[in-house]
């Protein structure tokens, strides 16, 4: 997927030339992987002469957003919290009043310490 996002599109041979030789992956493996990704509707393809030309069906950001949405959804329903530690808990919000009070406390502490940052 990364290779196709970078190059835009490519046949199995081109993906193999860019990735396979460097990583020691055979052309057959690249072909079957592309076919599996096509079957999972992550890639689309056109037949040009005897070769299939593959391209990603969605942008890298859309793909990331979908995966993160899945992960965040699981976190929100308490189904992924066993393997993920979020910097702030996604299921609980401090609320605007609490947040403003805490920000005022930080600003006050900075004022006392002579730190000019907001």
């Amino acid at each position, binding site marked *: *997927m*990364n290779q196709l996002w970078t190059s835009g599109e490519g046949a199995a041979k081109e993906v193999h030339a860019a990735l396979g030789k460097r990583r020691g992956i055979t052309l057959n493996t690249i072909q079957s992987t592309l076919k599996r990704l096509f079957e999972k509707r992550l890639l689309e393809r056109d037949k040009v002469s005897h070769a299939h030309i593959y391209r990603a069906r969605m942008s*890298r*950001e859309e*793909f*990331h*957003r979908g*995966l*993160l949405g*899945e*992960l*965040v*959804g*699981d976190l*929100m329903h308490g*189904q*992924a*919290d*066993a*393997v*993920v*530690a*979020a*910097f*702030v*808990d*996604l*299921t*609980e*919000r*401090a*609320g*605007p009043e*609490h*947040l403003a009070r*805490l*920000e005022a*406390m*930080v600003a006050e*502490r*900075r004022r006392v*310490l002579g*730190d000019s*940052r907001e």
Partner: protein
Amino acid sequence: MNPVVQSAQLFLLAGVAFLGLGAVGSAGVVGLVRSQLPSWEPRARHHAIALLTALPVLTALALLVAVSLPSLLALGIPGLDHCMAHEDAHTHLCFTHLPVAPVHAGVTLSLALLLGVGVLRASLAARRVARALRVVGVLARVGEEQPEHGLTIVDTALPLCLTAGLLRPRVLISRSLLASLHSDERAAVLAHERAHVRRRDALTGSIVRALSVFHFPSVGAWLVSELDVAAEQACDEEAATVMDRVTVAAAILTVERAVSTSFMGAQPFGPVAVAFGARAVERRVEALLAEPPRPTSLWALSSALGVALVAVLVNATELHHVAEFLLSVVAH
């Protein structure tokens, strides 16, 4: 029924009863320390909560070893075998003298049901973990890896910063959040996440979540939520050794505000304002604005558990006979 199966059922029944006893005892211990625990230094609190969560299982194991001790000793020293002094129909909790009287069908059925429910719940939990790990693995592979900073950047407008994975945890941070943080706050957030990686908090959290099912639901839920807060605060303290405490507090609030704004009204990620959620961020920020916590010793808690273990093992013979009597009443 096969005497070996009957014996296994008796040990299993004893194990289940000891787990229940452990849950009751643990609820008592948690009730005693519940008011003091939040003031403990985060790392010590994290260790203590992990220990408390394991208490029902540790209690059950200690009692099982204790009631099996006379039989185990008799295996090595035949002279210590006391089973011959019992009558033939005695409910032996023994590895060599197997019980003769059949176990009641209701008991067998209840044990099978309990085991079935346990296996089902464990399978569902394992499936959820496997699914989350798969998503994290794909995210890490497709993200932009920055090994020099020990993180992977993902392209999304969601302001996310996570440490994910059990054995090889990774820091995943969204490009949008990275861009919105002041350079000092960014350093604080990354130091906090690296602390999660170093401490393997996700692995500890998974084990604690698995062990929490042996507690009463309210006690287990409290232990898990307190463990999460303790882990976050322990990482805040580590971040505070890299950046100053006020900057770490400011970084928490910047991310909290970004998450609140981003998720506002965007179902299914709508804001969920709950009392504990408010307290989790408040506790972290207020602790960072207060004086650094003084180290807390776990000596008293460890000593109390050690004394309890010794007391159980010293009274192994009495416990063995009490367990045999109670099993004879319940199982037949």
